[in-house]
């Protein structure tokens, strides 16, 4: 690395960690020149992703997703509701994204993190508009009872790309969701039928005959990219996000239709070519990730 001016001379004598803290932007830009990132990734590469299903026993469906260090725990709980009059055959999905104080030094108890409601809104928009879940599948008795799926996502460790990880865990939790066997009792309430007495005579025909999974059509995959000068950094870490502040999140479904393209301002501009590149990276990374998970 050639040094060009005085302060760079100083930096060459400094310890790496000190340089990283004092001149974070310069530290990262030097890496970018070499087309590598501080954690050893090439620019367009996302971090390793793992998913484990069924992490929460008390929920109907749950998943733990990790992208690098960013960890999300998502769980779906089913409750019964009376469907709305305008859509008697549809269930409902309520999504909530939480950032408890354990996930980041910036979040303090009592004051919810600023990002949490924004991500909740974006997740709700994305999941509902992607058409991944047919709300009719959540219906039990037309006009009388339907499932309300409460999806709660907890960020356990925040290290960048929160939306990507949250969406991944949400999709995984829905894929793990099992709808229990229930029947309608005399009071018009829905009751569970436990497995032991499933062999016995049912007083009433069960509404939902067997345990089943939801059909997931066109699963959305999200990838956030950082735009900095001419560089595009896929799947930024928390440190990268705080230094280079322009992100672009692309969500594509399984047939590569655009579900969401979100660039909420930020100091930099996104040119058409950059957008095309981001879409391209999303396609390759979504394939890689699905191979990862298997």
């Amino acid at each position: 690395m050639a040094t060009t001016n005085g302060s760079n001379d100083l930096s060459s004598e400094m310890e790496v960690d000190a340089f990283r803290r004092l001149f974070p932007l310069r530290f990262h830009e030097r890496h970018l020149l070499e087309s590598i990132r501080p954690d050893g990734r090439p620019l367009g590469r996302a971090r390793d992703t793992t998913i484990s299903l069924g992490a929460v026993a008390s929920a109907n469906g749950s998943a733990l997703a990790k992208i690098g260090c960013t960890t999300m725990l998502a769980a779906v709980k089913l409750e019964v509701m009376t469907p709305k009059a305008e859509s008697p055959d549809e269930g409902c999905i309520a999504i909530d994204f939480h950032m408890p104080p354990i996930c980041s030094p910036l979040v303090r108890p009592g004051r919810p993190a600023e990002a949490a409601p924004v991500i909740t809104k974006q997740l709700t928009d994305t999941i509902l508009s992607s058409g991944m879940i047919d709300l009719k599948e959540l219906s039990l008795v037309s006009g009388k009872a339907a499932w309300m799926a409460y999806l709660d996502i907890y960020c356990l460790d925040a290290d960048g790309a929160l939306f990507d990880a949250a969406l991944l865990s949400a999709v995984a939790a829905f894929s793990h969701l099992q709808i229990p066997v229930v029947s309608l009792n005399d009071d018009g309430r829905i009751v569970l039928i436990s497995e032991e007495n499933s062999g016995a005579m049912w007083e009433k025909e069960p509404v939902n005959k067997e345990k089943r999974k939801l059909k997931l059509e066109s699963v959305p995959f999200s990838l956030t990219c950082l735009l900095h000068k001419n560089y595009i950094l896929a799947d930024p870490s928390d440190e990268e996000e705080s230094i280079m502040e322009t992100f672009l999140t692309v969500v594509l479904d399984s047939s590569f239709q655009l579900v969401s393209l979100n660039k909420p301002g930020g100091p930099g501009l996104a040119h058409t070519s950059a957008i095309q590149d981001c879409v391209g990276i999303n396609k390759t990374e979504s394939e890689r990730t699905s191979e990862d998970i298997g």
Partner: protein
Amino acid sequence: MAGKISNTPATYTPSPTSQDKKRPSIFTGSDWVRPDGRGLHQCRPAFLRTSAVNSASGSAYAEFGNAKVIVSVFGPRESKKAMMYSDIGRLNCNVSYTSFATPIRGQASDSKDLSSMLHKALEGAIILESFPKTTVDVFALVLESGGSDLPVVISCASLALADAGIMLYDMVASVSMSCLGKNLVIDPVSEEESYQDGGLMITCMPSRNEVTQMTVTGEWSTPKIHEAMQLCLDACSKLGKIMRSCLKETVSATQE
């Protein structure tokens, strides 16, 4: 496209059909049979891991049966501006539950109470003089409640403090006990807790043989308290050893 979350209708969790609720067997006079098949004085298997959260100064994950807890420790860092000068450090604790922690959504116990209990259990073990003017934040999240949540949180928090390099007099281990009829059961699960006639929780520093926190509810005779305390203290020292070995593992792993 419209936001479906607005004006969420009233919902309920479907209850099981089987109406013949099993009455606890203590009412029939026989010995209590534990729902998970353990012996009366046998603790649940404990799984402990440190450094579960990357962005915290120290953290730990604990799993005792179904009870799953993450604790993050931040600091020592700047105290809140409104705080007055203090020549010893401050400890700030917070416990919260996920909304899916309990079988019925959003029925978690009072987290304020738990936070203050956690604070009391830990304050006697931390060398607060070692970080004057600053605050150590201990935040716990109960991912899933499975009975004896508070003891699990306390033990896990002590592990996280050690992981963060906060000076401690000793590790803090905590175990609780339920009194069901004439039986004493250690490390109760949620179901046992809901039937209990009395409960006893001990938080202690095993190598110093000091109790930092103790609570008793329900009616107890003195000999019974003696017996329960002894059982809990023995279990605490065992748990202390497990915690110690867990810390050693992490250290040796990082040294390699």
